């Protein structure tokens, strides 16, 4: 099943790797992104080990149900992305366009839900710098009462807020850029730029999009569930 014609268009491939430049370039770029998110996650681990008292219990401050749905959405967008790629491999222009539009819409929805989550969190009282003075969370933390069927909230959450907004913020930025690039690829698809013989743009943006989904799978587990 795994042969050159299935996996890649018969574009000009490089002798060393057997694939075209765009794909090699994207994989190298994704390698640098792995290092980027590794640095963020590494810092997160160090800060959390150093100051565990600043972390709230899972589900106390962050909205896990909403984020779980958002995670499911991102998984769905990975499926629509591979369906788009499969469609153009089969020469199905209509399928390509339909699935690309679906991917753009779901990706944009993911970003919107994340913006809603941020606004809600800021209103509740968790900011990058910690508690917002006078907020529900700040008052609950100061009074030491149990919060949301959990233990009392941490006295200070500066590191919790900083790491949360930094990691999910950078990921959200990556998703936003992905949606914009996907919109561009979709526009080209509607102009018939991709064919069975050459659909490199679809494959390359697909690699990026799946990578963004893959990172969120890790982040969702580390940031929300632990």
């Amino acid at each position: 099943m795994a042969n050159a014609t299935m996996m890649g268009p018969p574009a000009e491939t490089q002798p060393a790797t057997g694939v075209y430049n765009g794909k090699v370039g994207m994989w190298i770029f994704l390698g640098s992104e792995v290092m980027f998110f590794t640095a963020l996650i590494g810092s997160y681990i160090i800060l959390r080990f150093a100051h565990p008292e600043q972390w709230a219990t899972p589900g106390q401050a962050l909205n896990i149900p909403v984020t779980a749905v958002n995670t499911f959405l991102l998984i769905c967008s990975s499926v629509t992305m591979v369906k788009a790629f499969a469609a153009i491999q089969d020469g199905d222009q209509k399928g390509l366009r339909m699935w690309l539009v679906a991917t753009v819409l779901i990706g944009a929805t993911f970003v919107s839900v994340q913006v809603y989550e941020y606004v809600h969190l800021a209103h509740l009282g968790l900011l990058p710098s910690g508690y917002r003075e006078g907020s529900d969370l700040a008052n609950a933390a100061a009074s030491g009462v149990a919060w949301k069927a959990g233990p009392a909230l941490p006295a200070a959450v500066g590191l919790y807020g900083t790491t949360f907004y930094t990691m999910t913020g950078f990921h959200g930025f990556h998703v936003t850029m992905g949606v914009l690039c996907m919109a561009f690829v979709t526009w080209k698809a509607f102009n018939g730029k991709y064919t069975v013989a050459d659909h490199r743009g679809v494959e390359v943006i697909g690699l990026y999009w799946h990578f963004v989904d893959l990172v969120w799978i890790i982040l969702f587990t580390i940031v929300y569930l632990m």
Partner: protein
Amino acid sequence: MEGSKHKHPPYIAIFVALTILTVGELFVAFLPWGRTTLIVILLFLAVWKALMVALYFMHLRFEKSPVRILAAAPLPLTVIVVIAVMTEFRW
């Protein structure tokens, strides 16, 4: 020339598996077990899901070895960094 029908990887099956594992994670996260046990199980599930995305959606399972080597190249660094920062406090 319309494209001949390729045999595509089992995308929908992977999608169902990812969904089930995500629901499984949500279930595990709130079990009354020891923290370390929960963390190990959650990380295992997350890595499993990530691998499925990489192997089937990013097609690494069907790629030639130069591309696989390229894709795997940064992973040793990730393991080194995570182990290094964790040992900062444990040993």
